């Protein structure tokens, strides 16, 4: 049974679920496009609790990006490490974490917040480096990850998943 403490009421929400849902909102609208009102309404959490637990909207954003890395990017890269064919790995990287609406958070963070926020930049670098490691040849990997991001950006704008393009690219590179 929850008890009241001198510092106010006990937290009445599931922190992990809140962070997961926040990642979806931020992935959809970006950092600046998501207001505290959007978070309060979308997460069903009291404003005071949000501030008390995360300190600021940025604090919640950092937690959401960390969650995105830990639960989507890094598991994907671990799975890709077992794929032998580079073209398959590339096309899966471009499409593999499209399953949920939070898929675009890394991409959006790279474009929107990383240039202004060193902690976001460090998380983005961690995600991109993990992707690079799974795409093989260290000389080519940065360009391949750039391709993955570009294909995902097109997919976000309604341009298809780009899986075929990724396969075609690696087939060209092998020749």
């Amino acid at each position, binding site marked *: 049974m929850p008890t009241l403490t001198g510092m106010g009421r006990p937290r009445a929400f599931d922190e992990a679920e809140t962070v997961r849902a926040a990642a979806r909102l931020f992935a959809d609208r970006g950092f600046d496009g998501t*207001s*505290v009102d959007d978070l309060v309404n979308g997460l069903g959490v009291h404003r005071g609790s949000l501030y*008390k637990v995360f300190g600021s909207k940025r604090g919640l954003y950092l937690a959401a990006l960390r969650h995105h890395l830990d639960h989507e990017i890094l598991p994907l890269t671990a799975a890709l490490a077992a794929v032998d064919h580079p073209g398959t790995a590339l096309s899966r990287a471009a499409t593999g974490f499209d399953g949920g609406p939070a898929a675009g958070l890394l991409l959006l963070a790279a474009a929107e917040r990383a240039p202004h926020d060193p902690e976001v930049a460090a998380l983005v670098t961690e995600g991109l480096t993990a992707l690079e490691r799974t795409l093989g040849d260290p000389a080519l990997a940065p360009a391949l990850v750039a391709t993955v991001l570009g294909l995902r950006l097109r997919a976000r704008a309604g341009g298809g998943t780009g899986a075929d393009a990724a396969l075609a690219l690696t087939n060209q590179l092998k020749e």
Partner: protein
Amino acid sequence: MAHVSVTGDTLTVEVEGLDRLWALKSRIEIPLRNIRGATADPGITREPKGLRAPGTHFPGVIVAGTFHRDGEKVFWDVKNPELAVVVELSDEKYTRLVVEVTDPRATVALIEQALRD
């Protein structure tokens, strides 16, 4: 309206003009280590404020002074909700400060930069 500045390891909030009268307070100093973050949050003024003591609350006109709600003590100085910035604190008399500033985005950037340095 409040002026927020950082000198050394201290954040200073100076309440300006007549707001000093309404808030019954003109200056708050917070060590940076007790600041958890800052957020531009126009929507917060629509939330229940709790009991004021001491301070002034003319709904829709001004919220100024110290308000108590759910065991939290919050300092308010806001007339224009669009310009409200929330500064979350720890180990301080106040749980958070909600103050109106000239440029919320710049104030949030100033505080975040100070916390990084």
